[in-house]
C-alpha cells in the first residue's frame, strides 16, 4: 500500500489520472490486459488512457526502486508527476548526448593511436 501525500496539491488530478494510477488498472496493465471492450480502433480517450497507464506504471516502478527525485505518494500530485517526467526525459537526453560525445572522443583517440603506427612508403 502506497503512502498518502501529507499536503493538498494546488491542482487536483483528473478522474482519468486517478483511474490510470489505481491499483485495479495498474494490475490489469501489468498482466497485459486492456480494460477495453474493443480490441482495435481505439478512441482518442482510450489512447490517452493507455499513455497514462504506461506513465504511472513507470512512475510507480521508479518510486519502488527509490530512483532520484521520487518519493511515495507523489503519484497523487499531477504537477509533480508532469515535472518528474520532464526532468527524467531531459536527464535521459543529456546522458545520451554525453555517451555520444564520449564515443566520439574515444574514436578520435583510437584514430590518433593508429596514426602512430602508420608508415608512409614513397
Amino acid at each position, binding site marked *: 500500500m502506497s503512502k498518502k501525500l501529507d499536503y493538498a496539491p494546488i491542482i487536483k488530478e483528473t478522474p482519468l489520472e486517478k483511474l490510470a494510477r489505481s491499483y485495479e488498472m495498474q494490475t490489469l496493465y501489468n498482466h497485459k490486459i486492456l480494460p477495453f471492450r474493443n480490441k482495435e*480502433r481505439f478512441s482518442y480517450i482510450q489512447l490517452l488512457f493507455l499513455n497514462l497507464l504506461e506513465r504511472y506504471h513507470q512512475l510507480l516502478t521508479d518510486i519502488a526502486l527509490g530512483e532520484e527525485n521520487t518519493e511515495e505518494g507523489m503519484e497523487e500530485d499531477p504537477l509533480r508527476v508532469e*515535472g518528474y517526467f520532464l526532468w527524467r526525459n531531459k536527464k535521459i537526453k543529456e546522458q545520451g548526448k554525453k555517451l555520444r560525445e564520449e564515443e566520439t572522443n574515444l574514436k578520435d583517440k583510437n584514430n590518433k593511436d593508429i596514426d602512430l603506427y602508420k608508415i608512409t612508403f614513397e
Partner: protein
Amino acid sequence: MQKSKDLERARQQIGEAIEYLKAKKIISDNAIEFEYNNETYRVVMPTLEQEMEVERAKTEKLNELLSKTDENGNPIYKFKNQWKEIYKKRGIDLDAYESKLQALTIDVENLLVKLAQTQDRPRILELEKQIAKLRDEIADITSFLVDKYRYSIENQLMFFSRNYLLSLVLEKKKGKKWVRVFKNFKELSNYKDTGLIKAGLTYLSYLINPEVNIINE
C-alpha cells in the same frame, strides 16, 4: 461546525467517486453511451468510410465559403492569416500573443523541472502556485485567440466537420436496437434541440482528437 465539514468532505468524496466511475465507463469502449432527456444515445467511433465522407463534404464546404462574395466582389470569409492582418491594422498583434503563449509554456516547463527536484513542502506549494498562475494566463490568452479566429475559414470548417461527423455517428436506443438520429447533415442542421447536439459533440470529442484547434491549425 465539524459536522458540516465532514458532510462537505463526504459530498466531495461521493462526487469524486461518480467522476471516477464515469471515466471508467467512457474509456471502456470506442462507443460512448449517454442519457439525454430520459433517452439513451451513443456516439460511435467513425469508420474510415465515414471519415472520407466528412472530408468530401469539407471540400465542398470550403469551395462554398471561398465562392461567397459581397456586393463589391470581395470574399466574405477570410483565412486565419487574413484575420491576423485585419487585427494588426487595428493595433492588435495576434502574432505577439502567440509568441507570449510559447514563452509562457517554456516558463511553465522550467518551473515543472524545478518542482521535480524538490521534496520540500513549502517550496512545492510555492512552485505549484506559480505554475497554476501561469497556466491561468495561458488559458486567458488561448481563449482570446480562439475568439479572434472564431470567424476564420479554418474555424468554420472545423465546426462544420465536427457537426457533419456527429450527424453520421449519433445513435439512439430504440428497444434493443440502435438507430441513427439523423438521416443526413441537413436534418442535424435543422434540429431544434441544440442541447442534444452539444452533448453529442462533447462525447464525440472523447472519440476523436479535439486538439486540432484553430490556434495551431
